């Protein structure tokens, strides 16, 4: 496992947690290794293209190592900018992993360095995270079949909402003409990506994602929230 002898920045950030460093790295779509020398041991996290893709400690690899590192209360870290991960052992989106870490910390009842306020902030922030907030999703919108938008995120969320609502109306009219009922989903794909609109219990979730992304699964999970 690489030691805390790195080419980039190294030091401590009083008041910041390792979650903050991960979040900052992911939001800036960084590729880097973050070496951590903590009170529980030494470890290294690899961020690739804005996702946590690998972690190692002396005793664990993958998500187990990541959760071990996130459980350390204090320490120092160093950033090795541009370092590519040696392998990919973590496939979940980073928000999901941090959310689980926050839940684990709550279940442990263990006080963190950032104190109750920081923990409350993390939990509050995690509430807005979901499968649709990953960087592979270009945009999404959730709305009722009556047309009321409940939430969403997209460069032009109104455009996405309008398009999805129109496609649903067309599909339902088309289904009626062919004697088909109970529209469940509309999926489209092209060279630039995929768009999926999933209907469930009077709610529609439309997701636009890049090529190769299982947008149908994301929309399915989004509809279950």
């Amino acid at each position, binding site marked *: 496992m690489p030691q805390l002898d790195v080419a980039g920045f190294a030091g401590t950030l009083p008041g910041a947690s390792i979650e903050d460093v991960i979040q900052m790295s992911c939001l800036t779509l960084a590729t880097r290794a973050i070496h951590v020398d903590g009170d529980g041991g030494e470890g290294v996290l690899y961020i690739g293209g804005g996702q946590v893709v690998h972690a190692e400690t002396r005793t664990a690899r993958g998500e187990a190592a990541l959760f071990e590192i996130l459980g350390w209360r204090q320490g120092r870290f160093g950033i090795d900018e541009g370092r590519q991960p040696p392998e990919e052992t973590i496939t979940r989106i980073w928000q999901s992993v941090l959310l689980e870490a926050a839940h684990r910390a709550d279940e442990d009842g263990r006080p963190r360095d950032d104190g109750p306020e920081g923990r409350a902030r993390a939990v509050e922030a995690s509430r807005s995270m979901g499968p649709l907030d990953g960087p592979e999703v270009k945009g999404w919108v959730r709305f009722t079949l009556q047309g009321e938008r409940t939430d969403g995120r997209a460069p032009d969320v109104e455009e996405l909402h309008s398009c999805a609502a129109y496609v649903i109306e067309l599909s339902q009219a088309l289904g009626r003409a062919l*004697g*088909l009922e109970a529209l469940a989903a*509309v999926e489209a*794909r092209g*060279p630039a*990506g995929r768009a999926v609109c999933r209907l469930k219990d009077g709610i529609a979730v*439309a997701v*636009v994602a890049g090529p190769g992304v299982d947008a149908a699964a994301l929309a399915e999970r989004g509809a279950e929230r």
Partner: protein
Amino acid sequence: MTSAAATLAGLRDVRGVEGSFLLLLPGGEVVTRDGLAVVTEASIADTSRRLSNMFQALESVCPGADEAVLRFEGLSLFARKNERVLLAVLAADTASMPALRMAANLVLRQLDGADLTPPAATEPSVPEPAAADVRRRFWRGSPV
């Protein structure tokens, strides 16, 4: 049976395919159809127009989209288009989508360069079903 219709019939080699139809873009005129005996010409024409509109609408969120799948209970409508035509296939939701995708690609390739003049609108190529048949429904891929 025209050559285009014969080409479409090959889609039924994929298990679960109920029938298909081919339309010209951008107007959505129906060129030919295969199977779907209980579906009226008017319904096919409406479906064609709506599919054409759907792909135009999808362009704003999924540029260059050339495939769409509309999933209904028991049945799916698979649509694939190129610059010239749009192929729509009605299939049971148990049909293999990769196999259907490949079969659709082959059909579009085989039709490349073919004369696809829509038939005259006076006489429908398939007899209109009785009024009771128009309301027939599918359940799990089979007419009920």
